[in-house]
């Protein structure tokens, strides 16, 4: 059983898909950097950036809906910037009951700009992940001289995210299968339920820990000596070589 929903790559043969990952990755990072540097209230620049993203989305054929849905997941995190509404000096608009916190116009604009900038950046990242297989991204990172330990760790993370998710799913199913409700409604207090969930998280951790030991044994058995070794170039698939030509 695979959790394919985690796999962000959407296979395709568009120009965006075929572009060499060594080009795509830096372009995306450059786009995110330029968005991050845009001043507050630069609506025209925001609009142009969004237009560029929509154009690339259209060319890639992954579907604007998909990109928006996935990007929306990141929106709640922008709430972390909520305090700038009150913390930025400017023309006071409205004081919260209690009189301690005052909303300023400059603060409101800044918050809105942060949300827009984050959303633009996330869309770019989502688009990159949707049009580039993860191993190609790792390979591009290697080619761009990202430290090899970091690349190797990202590779492990990607590989075992699925195994871990499968394991979590099996635990959840096992709980579900035993959570019968003979009287029509499930029993157990909130505290008891929390304890069960805690125990599940713990067992997931132990299982992962033990798995990591077994993986390390498997690595040692094939000659691992503590140093991360990588081939200079992973063979590129048809998709990437077509992009170069």
């Amino acid at each position: 059983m695979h959790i394919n929903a985690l796999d962000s790559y959407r296979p395709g043969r568009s120009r965006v898909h075929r572009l060499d990952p060594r080009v795509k990755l830096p372009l995306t990072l450059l786009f995110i950097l330029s968005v991050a540097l845009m001043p507050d209230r630069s609506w025209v620049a925001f609009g142009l950036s969004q237009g560029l993203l929509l154009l690339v989305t259209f060319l890639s054929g992954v579907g604007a809906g998909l990109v928006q849905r996935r990007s929306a997941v990141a929106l709640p995190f922008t709430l972390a910037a909520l305090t700038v509404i009150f913390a930025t000096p400017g023309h006071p608009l409205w004081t919260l009951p209690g009189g301690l916190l005052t909303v300023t116009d400059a603060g409101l604009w800044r918050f809105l700009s942060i949300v827009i900038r984050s959303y633009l950046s996330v869309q770019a990242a989502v688009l990159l992940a949707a049009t580039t297989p993860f191993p190609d991204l790792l390979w591009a990172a290697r080619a761009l001289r990202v430290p090899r330990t970091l690349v190797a760790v990202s590779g492990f993370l990607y590989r075992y995210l699925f195994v871990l998710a499968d394991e979590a799913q099996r635990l959840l199913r096992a709980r579900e299968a035993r959570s019968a409700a003979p009287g029509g409604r499930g029993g157990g207090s909130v505290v008891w339920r929390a304890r069960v969930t805690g125990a599940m998280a713990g067992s997931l951790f132990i299982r992962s820990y033990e798995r990591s030991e077994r993986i390390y044994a498997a690595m040692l058995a094939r000659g691992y000596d503590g140093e991360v070794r990588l081939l200079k170039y992973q063979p590129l698939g048809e998709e990437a070589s077509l992009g170069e030509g």
Partner: protein
Amino acid sequence: MMEPCVEVRDVRFTYPDGREALRGINLHLAPGEKVALVGPNGAGKSTLILLLAGLLKGQGSIRIFGEELTEKNVRRLRARLGVVFQDPDDQLFSPTVFDDVAFGPLYAGLPEAEVRERVAWALDQVGLAGFEKRLSHHLSLGEKKRAAIATVLAMQPEVLVLDEPAAGLDPRARRRLIAVLRDLPQAMLLATHDLWLVEELLPRTVLLNGGTVVADGPTAAILTNKRLLETHGL
């Protein structure tokens, strides 16, 4: 008789929690010989495999190709004795099949062109030619098991040690696996509960129980001895 490629003499191992897993194992494996290692759960099969790979250290002597297994030569000897672990998700730790099969040869210090050659050859041996770019987590269990064998074959070992290679496979995947294993020329020590596979593939059987060898002989003789098998939980 030829010099054995694996020779285990009076090997004992006790886990840190005090459980005695192996209580004096004696075993030898001739070049090219295919031997089944059977026994109930907890008999010590997996422990013995970890000791052979030099991943655990016990008492007694393990000689591989006439060389005593020590801290010093363990890395060199691992290239000649390949271990395929039970859970392919442990063995396949890289994002793509290529990376995983290339791991052993890469750490053996082979030049890039040869690494690629080895990968293609090993995948071909297990019937997975052209799987290089596939993602490990998208493979079926049967494919994962065979890919795990390829990761070890790529190192071209002279002895293969396999822990439950057929567990959890459907009959068709199992038949494919047996066909793959039968065509391999290496000496083989295969731990399993699958007596049908033993009968099909391995002429000699070693029966392990409670950390000791309770029987060692021709598979036909051991598998027809119903009383022996029942006494030892098979």
